[in-house]
């Protein structure tokens, strides 16, 4: 019984990261109709940037996080303006292929430059254990989960309560009407992509401070983010959070009770079952499959 609570707690911790990285993906899909297969690579670049900033440049964790967010936001903006922009309104297939090409390029270039060694990011707190009843966590994990929650809340506030967020939602509802109302939709798309990239990168850096990060992590992260987004419903904010937590707990339980070697299989089983039985996801409000 004690183990069960511990597994659930561990699952919720990794679930928080799944939620944060999936949020960027669902945001980009929901607002731009772009299925970003390079999402995991943006997450990975966040981890690598964080490592560069803290270990190589010697910044402290928060300055490093700020730098990572700024650089990755700029990267996202550029990717949208120079690549995605050119295939906008051509349907889904070109953007899928384009982002697959981008992910192949980013993974292998990073592999070439940084190598396969695991990169550790110095966390802001020591790895001291915290006892919450029967459950043991480390201070660093509690901090990272709190940071996830803060970032998710910040993204929510940006979309709900700022001028940019209103422009994003208007563009999502009807790009033509938004343009007629004087919204620069090209800038809105680029900002959305930048925001999604920043969410992925921050997840990459935070998780890199708990475990280590490595360059080839991207593919699996992309897939898990997709699992979460499909489970929660494409474009749904709440769905990404709940889906992330469900995936995290399911993996922790599978790893704890069945086998640790096949833990990644659970996500794929979830996705296959979701697409067969509830293809719109748990939370999707739109009546469409994409």
């Amino acid at each position: 019984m004690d183990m069960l609570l511990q597994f659930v707690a561990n699952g919720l911790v990794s679930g928080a990261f799944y939620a944060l990285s999936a949020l960027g993906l669902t945001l980009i899909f929901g607002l731009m109709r772009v299925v970003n297969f390079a999402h995991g690579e943006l997450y990975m670049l966040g981890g690598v940037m964080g490592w560069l900033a803290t270990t190589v440049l010697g910044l402290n964790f928060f300055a490093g996080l700020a730098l990572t967010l700024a650089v990755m936001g700029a990267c996202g903006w550029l990717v949208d303006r120079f690549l995605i922009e050119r295939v906008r309104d051509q349907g889904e297939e070109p953007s899928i292929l384009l982002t697959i090409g981008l992910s192949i390029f980013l993974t292998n270039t990073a592999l070439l430059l940084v190598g396969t060694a695991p990169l550790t990011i110095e966390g802001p707190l020591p790895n001291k254990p915290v006892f919450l009843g029967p459950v043991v966590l480390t201070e660093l994990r509690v901090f990272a989960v709190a940071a996830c929650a803060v970032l998710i809340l910040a993204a929510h506030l940006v979309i709900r309560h700022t001028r940019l967020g209103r422009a994003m939602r208007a563009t999502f509802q009807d790009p033509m009407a938004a343009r007629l109302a004087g919204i620069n939709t090209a800038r809105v798309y680029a900002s959305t992509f930048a925001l999604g990239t920043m969410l992925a990168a921050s997840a990459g850096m935070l998780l890199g401070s708990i475990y280590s990060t490595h360059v080839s992590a991207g593919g699996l992260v992309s897939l898990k983010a997709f699992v979460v987004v499909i489970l929660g419903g494409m474009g749904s904010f709440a769905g990404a959070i709940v889906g992330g937590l469900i995936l995290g707990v399911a993996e922790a339980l599978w790893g704890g009770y069945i086998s640790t070697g096949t833990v990644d299989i659970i996500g794929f089983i979830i996705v296959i079952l979701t697409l067969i039985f509830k293809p719109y996801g748990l939370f999707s409000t739109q009546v469409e499959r994409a």
Partner: protein
Amino acid sequence: MKFERNTLLVLGLIALAFPLLVGNQYLLHIGIMVLLYAVLATSLNLIVGYVGEFSLGHTAFLGLGAYTAALLSLRLGLPAWATIPLAGVVSALFGVVIGAITLRLRGPYFVIITLAFAEVLRLIANNWVDFTNGPMGLSGVAQPALLADASPLMAKRFYFYLALGLTAVSLYLAYRFVYSNNGRAAVTVRENRFVAQSVGIRPFVYAMRAFVLGAFLAGLAGGFYAHYITFVGANVFGFAFMVSMIIMVLIGGKGTLIGPLLGALLVTLLTEYLRELQELRLSLFGLIVMAVVLFLPNGLMGFLNHRRERNPSDAADGAARAQGGPA
């Protein structure tokens, strides 16, 4: 149609003469790899070009074929002429099951679910140690008995002709499929699903046939791969094969029969040429995919067809093709 058939026949004749003119094992090996990839690219093209959905899980069928042939050969001692067709049949059976689930979905969902199936199979191959020997893989798959006392050069020639035979079978099946009512219906579905349905074409049925045929051909290629390389590991389900196949189909031009062959030839030669730049190679492939999507959306064959149709001297041929159905 005529252009495509004639080109295929000429290419076939060149390929027939190739091993007789070349006495170099390395060149023959490259030729064999080109043919293997030609089968794979043709089979993926059936799904990408004629179902119109993008599969990232085609390695599932390659891997199933390779493991089937390796297990049948190692555990039951079946000879290669039996294991390779059986590999195709097993892949096709899985194609029926996987297709029945995945073809209900479209766009990004199809991409993800096919990828999910390939990943599940890879994880099973890596973890079910009793059956698949796990990460160690299956080594020592038997070569055909015929080659017991043949020289290495003769063995390479034998494999070349075996691969050429498989390629010919694949292209014949693909050709018959594409220029049958099946193929035309599939193109109609690809171009406009709703029009297709309104004239009585059931998209799912035709997509399923293309999918199963693609799975069968990929399984044959997998079976051949197992006997040629004599080793099968979980990497046959991996993304590297998938990337190569995608690039071949895209560069050559999806939805044409010659395109994937051209792609297989170009990419295999490029891979060999860039062998010294091993790590840089995949980065370059990523850039190539992006460049093709941006600048050459219909591939080389799309570009050439476009040129041919605009060229007045070929106008008659172009008109004949326009009447004879999609090229």
